């Protein structure tokens, strides 16, 4: 991945980032410095954004823009760019851009990081910051005709709103008017079996080929950030992460919130609970990848065929185990700050035996899948070399998870920014170099094997754990009130990639700002790069291989 690794190492030291050196690099642009719990933040003027980010990317190697957070304070609007590196996740820096409250305008970062395009549209939509030089600044989650910006402080939620149901027009129609070629506009969704939920894909076809594609999202925007901002840290937020990525990836998502809230409040988690968490999370990853596999094949073969049923059969097995563990089939609500809610089910031997059975059967099951899917010639023709996503492009779009790893980007937060019990266990990060639809499927299938490895090691550990040391939760105060203006961004490896949360506390028992970085949001953005020039069925295959869950895209 050392494509053009010139001097992109300013500020790199043995143990982290030398922020003073970065400050020297940015020079006059920096007007102030802030300390967030995860990294230092450099405050820059709203007209210096592009230059600052470009320097940080080119000279200091911060090639991954994880997220853009916008929020409003009584005296200013603020955008925060959370930067890190694909090569070394532990190196982080934030760029903070305050703007004037009357006329919140700041420079767009879209020319430096492609992914900023969608993030800034979202910030404009929900908070109301205006990004100058943005190529296409309009609402992304809410309907075009919406009045006001719901996450800004002066929004009145009771005001009536109007939503239109009009025809969509071909965005390329005009430009192709005088050329020879004719383009046709094709709506896919929001109610369509190939869109994996309520997604609307506006596709413009030139003959058989896709000339332009724009995912239109927001059909499942359930105000997750508002919900989290209305809940207290201790208990009221935890149920929501289950509902972001609902492909039964619940525990992985709960971990994202647990991790950020535990860092914010300095809460330790007992070792035993860490192992239980790790085991549960990996079971969820298997369930999520099975769904991805089943629905992807549904897209390719076009009906509720055998493969889909096979995948559902295996999901049922995992869901049964998870139900024993948590009491629910999907919305587990099992993690608590400082641990988990209850210990493993009794009798423990039976529970372990159930998991062991499942793990023991898995190699054979996967062999079946390989027979059915990856060995199938039609399947190969449909997926190999279609939906190609080059590694550099994937990085520009901020792709993570199996999508990035299918393009050979070796990035996995479980290893690169260890949490839980992962660094004590023996497993590998899976990557594939195919960069195509096939590679992404293969990564998921091989990851299932790795998860199984992790689970069986956890089971071994848990089995031998002395009875009087089964500590499932540490002491956590009844009400959590982190110091005002503490800011933190933390991420975990969800089923789809880097799932991060930014919290600013305002001194009360509820977060002042709660921003979710969902991997699906970024991954879906890259669809335009993958699908252009392909045929429509390949567009559908590409969309399927991204494995987007609309609940997480729209939040």
């Amino acid at each position, binding site marked *: 991945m050392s494509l053009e690794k010139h001097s992109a190492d300013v500020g790199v030291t043995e143990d982290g980032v030398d922020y003073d050196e970065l400050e020297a690099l940015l020079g006059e642009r920096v007007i102030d410095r802030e300390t967030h719990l995860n990294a230092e933040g450099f405050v820059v003027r709203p007209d210096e954004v592009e230059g600052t980010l470009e320097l940080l990317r080119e000279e200091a190697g911060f090639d991954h823009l994880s997220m853009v957070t916008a929020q409003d304070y009584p005296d200013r609007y603020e955008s925060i760019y959370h930067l890190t590196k694909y090569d070394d996740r532990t190196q982080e820096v934030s760029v903070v851009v305050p703007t004037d409250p009357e006329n919140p305008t700041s420079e767009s970062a879209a020319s430096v990081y492609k992914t900023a395009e969608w993030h800034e549209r979202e910030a404009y939509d929900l908070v109301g910051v205006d990004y100058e030089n943005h190529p296409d600044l309009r609402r992304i989650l809410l309907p075009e005709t919406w009045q006001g910006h719901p996450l800004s402080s002066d929004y009145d939620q009771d005001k009536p709103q109007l939503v*239109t*149901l009009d025809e969509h027009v071909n965005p390329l129609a005009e430009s192709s008017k005088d050329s020879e070629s004719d383009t046709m506009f094709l709506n896919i969704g929001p109610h369509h079996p190939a869109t994996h939920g309520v997604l609307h894909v506006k596709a413009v076809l030139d003959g058989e080929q896709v000339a332009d594609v724009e995912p239109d999202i927001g059909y499942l*925007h359930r105000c997750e950030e508002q919900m989290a901002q209305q809940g207290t840290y201790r208990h009221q937020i935890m149920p929501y992460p289950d509902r972001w990525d609902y492909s039964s990836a619940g525990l992985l998502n709960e971990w994202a919130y647990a991790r950020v809230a535990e860092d914010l409040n300095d809460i330790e988690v007992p070792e035993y609970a860490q192992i239980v968490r790790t085991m549960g999370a990996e079971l969820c990853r298997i369930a999520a990848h099975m769904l991805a596999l089943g629905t992807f094949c549904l897209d390719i073969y076009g009906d509720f065929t055998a493969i889909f049923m096979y995948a559902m059969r295996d999901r049922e097995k995992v869901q049964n185990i998870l139900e024993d563990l948590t009491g629910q089939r*999907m919305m587990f609500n099992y993690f608590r700050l400082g641990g988990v809610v209850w210990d493993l089910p009794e009798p423990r031997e039976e529970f372990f035996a159930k998991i062991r059975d499942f793990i023991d059967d898995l190699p054979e099951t996967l062999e079946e899948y390989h027979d059915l899917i990856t060995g199938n010639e039609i399947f190969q023709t449909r997926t190999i070399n279609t939906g190609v996503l080059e590694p550099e492009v994937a990085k520009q779009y901020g792709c993570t998870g199996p999508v990035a790893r299918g393009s050979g980007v070796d990035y996995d937060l479980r290893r690169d920014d260890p949490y839980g019990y992962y660094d004590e266990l023996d497993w590998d990060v899976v990557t594939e170099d195919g960069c195509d639809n096939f590679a992404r499927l293969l990564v998921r299938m091989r990851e299932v094997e790795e998860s199984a490895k992790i689970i069986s090691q956890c089971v071994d550990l848990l089995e031998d754990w002395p009875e009087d040391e089964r500590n499932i939760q540490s002491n956590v105060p009844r009400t959590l009130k982190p110091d005002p203006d503490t800011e933190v961004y933390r991420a975990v490896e969800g089923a789809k990639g880097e799932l991060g949360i930014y919290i600013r506390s305002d001194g009360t028992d509820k977060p002042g700002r709660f921003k979710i970085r969902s991997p699906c949001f970024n991954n879906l953005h890259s669809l335009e790069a993958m699908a252009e020039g392909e045929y429509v069925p390949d567009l559908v295959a590409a969309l399927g291989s991204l494995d987007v869950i609309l609940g997480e895209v729209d939040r």
Partner: protein
Amino acid sequence: MSNEPRENIHGSTDPQTKTREARTGPGLDNRFNSKLREAFGSSPFILTKFDKFMNWVRGSSMFMLQFGIACCSIEMMHTYAVKHDLDRFGSGVPRASPRQADVMIVPGTIVSKFAPRMKRVYDQMPEPKFVVNMGSCAISGGPFQEGYNVIKGAEEVIPVDIHVPGCPPRPEALVYGVVKLQERIANGESSPVTVKPYELEQFGDLERDELVEKLADDIDEDTLVMRYNWADSP
């Protein structure tokens, strides 16, 4: 042999104009016979009310719309798939087009941008049609009820026959809901189709209030719109 004249292996060139009776003999094709039929005698018929018969037919072959919105749709897929297998109850083949379906399961949260589209899909289904609400979100907005963008239940937009509570309801619960619906249809019971608060209307027909005035320049008179009065929502 291939060098022999073709005529030798040719059969009759008579057109196939035989009637069914000539082909299968008098009475019912043997394959359609059954013990019960034999017990009734040579050409049995039964008497029932037409409506009763039609209701029985309707209840026994329901075509579901393949419709996924949010988390609940994952459990809905499990309901269709192995283990739960909704098909056993005569209602398990999901149809991708609303024009081939008569039951809509609403599995998830409905938000402002989606409601007009959902209404359109519902309108495209042929009559008689039925709706099953799956999960708290479709019933009331569920965990997201206080969101700025969330419709407080599918009943604000389309008429609903059965509510299956849960977040998400287990597949068994959904099966129960669907079977209850079949039972009710077979018995000729139906829920009243009431006028709902959020209708699709032409923009020009709306009352000229502040919001409408403001949008008048951007929206064409005959564009369809849905107007949400959040303050009046439960």
